[in-house]
């Protein structure tokens, strides 16, 4: 090879994401114009905001120091939240398996696939709070509404990700089972489920974590658990108790995140 000539250095710049400069700068200008218009046209009531700041300060100062006197009430609320989260996770994760199988294009025939996808899309289309409002209206206040809400939420989330996992399995194993004359269900149990098991356990841990958070939120609209306790504390201006509840929620979430992270690292 000839040595590199030290002539004029060749220049290099990363090519822009959008090649056409007109489009590139046009998009930037449109985005900036929209932001200015949006902020200008939304009804910000500055008088109300300035009034609200000291009120917020009063609420927060009312929260200090947090009051753990009604510890038992707090414990009851959390116990119920845990029950809701654990039951909903178990139910949701178990039910998500058949729906995921139905919604996996590679192992489900077309009509079944469409039904499976539809179920997953529907259960994913609403935020748990909206679903909780519906279930509270349907089955009344209390933990049952919470369990139903979070079960549906879990089916949607775990089912979707599991279906995608099934679509990406090593197909050779399925072919080998078919070639040996195994039936559909035997093939599922031998060639499909072992391949998605690590993902399934990881997702279940994540879902438990997520249901624990969500169980506090859906409690606010009357679906039982610590959310209800929190709402009552706010309603009675017990800001110190409310603050105590918030602190415990943070602690519980941190703890569950730590545990689920550790478990997910243990399986591969």
């Amino acid at each position: 090879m000839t040595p590199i000539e030290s002539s004029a250095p060749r220049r290099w710049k990363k090519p822009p994401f959008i090649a056409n400069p007109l489009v590139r700068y046009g998009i930037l200008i449109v985005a900036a114009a929209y932001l200015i218009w949006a902020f200008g046209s939304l009804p910000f009531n500055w008088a109300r905001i300035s009034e609200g700041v000291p009120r917020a300060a009063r609420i927060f100062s009312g929260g200090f120091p947090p009051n753990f006197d009604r510890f038992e009430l707090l414990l009851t609320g959390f116990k119920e939240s845990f029950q809701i989260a654990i039951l909903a996770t178990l139910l949701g994760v178990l039910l998500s398996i058949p729906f995921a199988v139905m919604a996996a294009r590679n192992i489900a025939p077309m009509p079944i696939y469409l039904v499976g996808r539809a179920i997953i899309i529907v259960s994913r289309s609403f935020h748990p709070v909206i679903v909780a409002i519906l279930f509270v209206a349907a089955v009344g206040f209390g933990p049952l509404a919470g369990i139903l809400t979070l079960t549906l939420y879990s089916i949607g989330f775990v089912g979707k990700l599991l279906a995608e996992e099934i679509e990406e399995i090593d197909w050779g194993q399925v072919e080998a089972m078919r070639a040996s004359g195994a039936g559909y269900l035997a093939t599922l149990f031998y060639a499909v489920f072992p391949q998605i098991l690590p993902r399934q356990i990881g997702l279940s841990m994540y879902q438990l974590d997520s249901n624990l958070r969500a169980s506090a939120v859906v409690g606010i609209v009357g679906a039982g658990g610590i959310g209800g306790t929190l709402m009552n504390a706010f309603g009675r201006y017990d800001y110190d108790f409310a603050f105590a509840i918030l602190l415990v929620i943070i602690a519980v979430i941190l703890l569950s995140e730590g545990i689920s992270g550790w478990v997910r690292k243990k399986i591969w």
Partner: protein
Amino acid sequence: MLEIKNLVKRYGHSEPVLKGLDLKVEGNSVVSIVGASGAGKSTMLRCINRLVEPTSGSITLNGVELVHLKGAELRLARRKIGMVFQGFNLLDRLTVMENVLAGRLGYVNLFQAISRRYPQEDIDRAFHLMERVGIAHYANKRADELSGGERQRVGVVRALMQEPDVLLADEPTASLDPRTSEQIMVLLQSLASELSLPVLINIHNVAQAKTYTERIVGLRHGKMIFDGEPAAFNKDALDEIYGGIEAPDGDITAEPAASETTHDAH
């Protein structure tokens, strides 16, 4: 006896991959099928156990027509056809024993399959075959912990667990190093005579085909252009099969060093 008559396979509206193949395999003969990539070797093998749907033609195994079977009948027919794959296709996260017993899935019911309560004869047969190929001590190891050659032995034993009437091997040695692949060829050859089982082997390595099988079938563009004994497979036949497409993997003049590798397993 396996008999293929006028087998045609066409994907969509493109040119057929198989253009009217005829093949008859009897007794415990080991047949190797050679041909360049895309010649239709794999498609032909997969048509036999219907992993690929034939477009037309007839395939009979011991008098049973396989082409139009559906559902339970297809499963019953498939369990009499063992298959060994290029990529082994083992159930990686399950144990070697579970992989071997999976060869019985066509025979046991769903409860037995899920609870792993296989009949005692199956377990005896599994240990017997695993000892024969030298993997019995791995019974409780996970399949993905084994080396390539060991994994293919598991694949072979799994296929034999089906008590097949014919064994299909789709490039069984292509993922293995040269020495291990010769061990697997020796194993297939000796198992065929021990169990008096006809074996069809798709293979790229012409030298191995000549050494370890007693009949060579050459495919090109979906047609059979050679069918005969290894001795008759000369330079002309090789050129006809691979000529103008690609160089064959093995040199026709080179015979593999069989002295060291004939003692397989143990």
